[in-house]
């Protein structure tokens, strides 16, 4: 009898617990729990896909031979060797120099010109077709001109990277400034802000999230630009290493380099996205809170 009673009282309590659990999964209550759970599931799937890809490589390698697909373990040992003998570190250094200098030049000049065009809307309107025309032309179209002007080495490569990346930064900066929050501008005007203060203390800070996404897009383009420059000008860096391996059908070497490129690109984009989220936090919060 007593057991029976206990069971009866337990049942609704258990039901209550599951109900609470379900409520905790609702967007307001415990969005964090739900998010962590879905992230864990996503990670599991990502690992599964990676293992499937490696297995696929192995199968393709055994059925079709080393030329079509190197075996995963050959790629692994080749990578270890190329890192150990300094081949990859040296190439990585060369690539990072071109990439880094190109990106720094593109972002500083892009932000400066973007601020100028945003601050003088008339100038921006006049130059708009030219900015669009150059931006819409593939960076590779300028390679012959760049070679004639700057040669085949680092300067030419940096110039190509700069040219490819400067426009997204510039366009995002200008757009961010010209789309600055009208309500905040009116507020500052009503308190008697000068045009200078209005620009530097309201419009430019308000454009910061847009500038940062310009930088992120620019960085991604810098990676593409670097590899194209290394393939088409004097072969160097990761791009040079990759094309040399490919031309000699050393597919395991080729894959070892491609993996480094993938990792580099991912790291740079992840880093910039984190920076963007940190600096643009107030904007995210504003959108959430209405």
């Amino acid at each position, binding site marked *: 009898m007593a057991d029976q009673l206990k069971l009866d009282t337990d049942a609704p309590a258990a039901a209550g617990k599951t109900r609470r659990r379900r409520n905790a999964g609702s967007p307001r209550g415990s969005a964090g729990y739900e998010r962590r759970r879905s992230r864990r599931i996503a990670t599991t799937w990502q690992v599964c896909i990676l293992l499937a890809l490696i297995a696929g490589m192995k199968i393709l390698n055994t059925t079709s031979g080393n030329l079509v697909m190197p075996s995963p373990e050959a790629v692994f040992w080749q990578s270890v060797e190329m890192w150990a003998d300094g081949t990859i570190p040296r190439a990585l250094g060369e690539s990072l120099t071109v990439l880094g200098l190109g990106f720094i030049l593109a972002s500083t000049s892009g932000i400066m010109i973007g601020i100028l065009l945003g601050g003088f809307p008339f100038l921006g309107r006049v130059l708009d077709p030219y900015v669009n025309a150059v931006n819409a032309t593939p960076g590779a179209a300028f390679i012959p001109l760049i070679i004639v002007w700057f040669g085949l080495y680092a300067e030419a490569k940096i110039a190509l990277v700069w040219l490819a990346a400067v426009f997204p930064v510039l366009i995002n900066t200008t757009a961010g400034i010209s789309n600055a929050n009208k309500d905040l501008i009116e507020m500052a005007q*009503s*308190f*008697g802000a000068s045009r200078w203060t209005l620009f530097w203390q309201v419009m430019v800070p308000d454009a910061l999230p847009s500038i940062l996404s310009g930088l992120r897009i620019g960085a991604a383009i810098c990676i593409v630009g670097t590899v194209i420059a290394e393939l088409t000008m004097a072969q160097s860096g990761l791009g040079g290493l990759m094309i040399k391996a490919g031309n000699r059908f050393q597919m395991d070497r080729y894959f070892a380099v491609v993996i480094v490129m993938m990792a580099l690109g991912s790291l740079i984009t992840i880093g910039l996205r984190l920076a963007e989220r940190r600096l643009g936090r107030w*904007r995210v919060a504003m959108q959430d809170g209405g």
Partner: protein
Amino acid sequence: MTETRPPIISLNGVSKSFKDGQVQAIEDLSFDVRPGEFVSLVGPSGCGKTTLLRLIDGLVAPDRGTVLVNGRPPDPTYNMAMVFQSSRLLPWRTVAGNIDFVLGLRGHAPKARKSRVQALLGAVGLREFAEAYPHELSGGMQQRVGLARALAVEPEVLLMDEPFAALDAMTRETLRGELLRLWDRRRMAVVFVTHDIDEAIILSQRIIVLRPRPGRIDAVVPVDLPEPRWQTDPRGLPAYADLRRALWDRIHAMGREGVALEELTGAFGDEP
């Protein structure tokens, strides 16, 4: 005494239209505000209340007529401040930083600003939120920061554009009391735009009823209720009920003259 002093705000035959004259926002509108007076503007949507504030603030110029503040054409660098319906705080600055921003605009030395900011935050009860960012505050707290920011410039004219409209009833009530207390101490002229007839009666000394399309003055109603009203609530007084009825009669008359009923009900919420 105050009546003999020249008006601090003076509008004379002011007209303003938008979209190249297609939308007449305000037509031939005249009124004065005395120094230290609390005036409310009420009326259905489309009667140009916000445009009026922007004209007084000098953010827009009238098509015809004159706007004078302290005898001169309005100039935002004059001691005037605006409180908006949404707080319009700079989201990348802290609460203290937002107040510091306007002190900087008025050319206060950075050293002197810090204690001013503290004092202002104390006045609106937000001293411990100095380092918080606007998005971390509730709507009511944000609006208090907006009020503190406006008070920072020690305005002789405070323009308020439905500052409490977006807040819940309880917060609205509290902030009305705080506004009256601050006004009682500083006695700046206040032009307060609202949709809420009760709010207008509780706060102001004079109510200007506007009619829409284009905005014109329908009636000017003095509010002769005992002050200070932040200490004793006037809502129980017979005079309050009479005033409220008189104002509603004006508005119903507007309805009979062809102002769409949904505009009235929309503007005045759940009223009769």
